[in-house]
């Protein structure tokens, strides 16, 4: 009787740990090959509008022009270079002042509202809206309205503040802090299947800001910092683009750089999987971005210690 119980338990454990994971996730974690996760394609409408794709870029940071802008520069990459051509589709202002720009593998552009200095053109009720600029026509339309927290309040003027795209699965990860308050962390990181416009997974009660995806350490990982502190967390993504396990703190910007309490604005994964983490001061207010100095901190994954190691501020 006793032996039989043990045997059964062992079989159940074996099934639970090692067979089910083949269908879902694992007791033995999935090991993935490195992937640069760089699949963005130039939107075809750029060329039909007479812009040179190689020297053109999109911007939402012009302080005099609200919305999305297509700019052609004499020297792409140099922010001080002369702009030779600019274009704004009439629909590109409909979201007010915008922040993230994300281009998918079809050339569609995803963006969302973010207030600039004040909320005159950015009503709080619109803060959780994702807009999509069609790769072919260049027209911007509402793509998806994310669920809104019940506790929307006038203290927090922000909603969506981060976006990143997983090429493998066509999943858009969107962080929103809508509804968060000083003492209540009510934000979410949504995983959205772009084709079906469906939220396929979400992490709750987290005010994620800048995000990035890297395939370091044999894992497909979403890295993110929050608006609450200087820590960088990661959560593993499975082959379907869903979250596998809970986020964990992997390193911090605390006490680094000239300010020592930077929050993560953006995370970029380098060709070898290194992470370039852009840090700024952020306190959920509307202090003008130009007052904020940005520092890029580089981290590399040390296989031996299995830890992310700070390299140097750039």
């Amino acid at each position, binding site marked *: 009787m006793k032996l039989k119980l043990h045997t059964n338990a062992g079989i159940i454990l074996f099934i639970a740990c090692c067979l089910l994971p083949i269908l879902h996730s694992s007791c033995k974690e999935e090991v993935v090959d490195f992937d640069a996760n760089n699949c963005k394609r130039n939107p075809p409408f750029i060329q039909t509008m007479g812009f040179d794709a190689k020297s053109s870029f999109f911007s939402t940071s012009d302080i005099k022009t609200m919305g999305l802008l297509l700019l052609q520069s004499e020297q792409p990459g140099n922010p001080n270079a002369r702009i030779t051509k600019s274009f704004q589709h009439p629909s590109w202002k409909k979201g007010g002042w915008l922040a993230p720009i994300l281009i998918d593998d079809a050339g569609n552009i995803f963006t969302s509202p973010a207030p600039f200095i004040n909320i005159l053109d950015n009503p709080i009720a619109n803060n959780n809206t994702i807009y999509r600029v069609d790769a072919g026509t260049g027209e911007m339309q509402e793509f998806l309205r994310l669920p809104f927290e019940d506790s929307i309040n006038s*203290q927090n003027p922000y909603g969506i503040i981060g976006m990143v795209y997983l090429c493998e699965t066509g999943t858009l990860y969107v962080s929103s802090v809508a509804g968060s308050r000083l003492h209540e962390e009510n934000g979410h990181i949504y995983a959205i299947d772009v084709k079906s416009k469906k939220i396929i997974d979400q992490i709750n009660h987290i005010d994620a800001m800048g995000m990035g995806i890297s395939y370091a350490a044999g894992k497909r990982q979403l890295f993110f910092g929050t608006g609450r502190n200087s820590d960088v967390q990661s959560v593993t993504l499975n082959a379907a683009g869903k979250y596998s396990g809970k986020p964990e703190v992997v390193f911090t910007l605390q006490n680094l750089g000239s300010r*020592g*309490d930077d929050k993560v604005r953006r995370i970029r994964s380098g060709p070898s999987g290194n992470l370039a983490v852009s840090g700024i001061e952020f306190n959920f207010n509307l*202090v*003008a971005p130009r007052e904020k100095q940005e520092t890029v901190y580089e981290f590399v994954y040390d296989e031996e210690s299995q830890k992310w190691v700070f390299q140097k501020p750039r």
Partner: protein
Amino acid sequence: MRIFVLLFISSAGFLFSCNNKTESSGSVNKYNDDVLKSVIANTDSLKTFDFVNARVEAIKNALQQPTPVLLCGDSLNSNQKLAQQIAVRDSTFTRSIRDIGSNTPFRTEIFGVYPARESDLSNLKEKINLSDCYRVEMYNYPLNLTTVALVDIKRQKIIATFTQQQTQPEIPLHLKNLAIKIAINSPEVQEAYGIKPSEKDALMASTKTSLNRTRCERSHHLCVAPTFVKDGKALWAIVDLTEHKLVGVRWTNVGTTGPAAPMITERRLQDDKVTACFCEKETPLEKDGWKMNYMLTSSDGLRIAQVSFNGKPILQSAKLVDWHVSYSGTDGFGYSDAVGCPYFSQAAVIAFEPPKIMMIKDEGGNFTGFALEQAFRSEQWPTPCNYNYRQRFEFYKDGRFRVSAASIGRGCGNDGTYRPVFRIAFAAEQNNFAEWSGTNWNNWPLEKWQSQNAATVYAESKYQYQLSDNTGNGFFMQPGNGKFGDGGRGDNAFVYVTQTKPTVDEGEAELVTIGPCCNTDYHQGPEKFIEPSPDNIQNKKLVVWYVAQLKNDDTKGREYCWAESVLENGVYVTKAYPCFAGPMFVPINLKK
């Protein structure tokens, strides 16, 4: 040239904290005691200590020298002294010790001379004898710049020089000692610690006292934090070694394991304190017959409420809704700035410091009332496109009160117009509003706006409006017209009067940005509560909206709504030229 230092008020009784004498009300505060009991030192009255005088003299003396570098204050051996001499004679090493344009010396100081390390020489191609080499570190205070020279004393020359921006070298021993001395002699530290810590205690390892590096992100000064451990907690005393003063104090828990505790910095100390004590709860204030509550808002500045005088309700509330800033050089260019709390707010310009309460003196030196004042600042002020606003309520013993505000520049150009939007809600249930026609007070029957201009006539050369109840009691309203003695040149104000509606909130609660930056006419926001169908305002509870229009000026000798940095004693200091605006309310019965 007249520089308004904002201190025409005599003495100051500063409210630093939630640990002041007044009681707090409102909801439960979620900050811990360490934040609530932290202290932001009084930055308006520079504490001077006798023991600092010698150093200040040495700094001033060094600035007069042909090579205006303060030499290392620590004891050096002969080789170190030689290395220092070689370095300061070298034009490459000293190329950043003066302002390029004016040749005015910067305050620079040799912080240390150390035997060179192997790693210092790793990039050099020529073969160097390590024992002959010294590393000389110089700090430039105004530029927050470290310059390092590698000196070969045998060959009497510099073999390498490099600079590090926004970096401070290792603090020399004499400055560490000075920081500890400033800390233990500061009343704020003594009060927080319970007793005056001794220098001996501070330097003993057994007390676990250490000199933590910290940051003064806002002042960009050289700061350190002597930290005193007591009962398992650490008291951080942030000391500014540029101005030789205490910035503030705060307790933290001392952890034995886990990640490093966040560094206590100037910004963190200030923002946490302001938020916990003034953004999350109201503070009651009772003085000179006046009684009120005040608190910082998300985007409406400092708000006063339930204001009464000698027991009679006067104001339901008063606040500063917006600052509209437009620049005439570029059509439609400007900003609509809200002022308010540092965390979780719609403020573009935030409060760094707690509100201050100051006594007001008349020309004869008599105390006539008090002022409640709040500063809001951009971090990089006074560099271009950064702002500094001052909000100020004045209350007098005779029942007069003034609601005012100032811009202190600097903004994005010298063609700016600032339009502060005040909302002043009166408490009386049945008021009438009248304008002076030149001969009579004519009541406004309906909600309305009007502008102050050159043709405006004033009763007794001062009063443009009157707000009174049906017994004739109330206030004359005196707009800013250059007669308040605060440097104001006239408000050229739009005045709007609306009815307080019992069922509709028209701005009593937190008001989001009410209008755009750049309208030059009466479309500043309050008109949306009037148009298209103005309501009756006779014998009603009323709100007065007041939008001043202040044109900035950077002309030498006529600066207005302006600020600039100048080098004084080798460091940058700010000269401020505020433009105060806002109406005074004078009790009608004061004239009877």
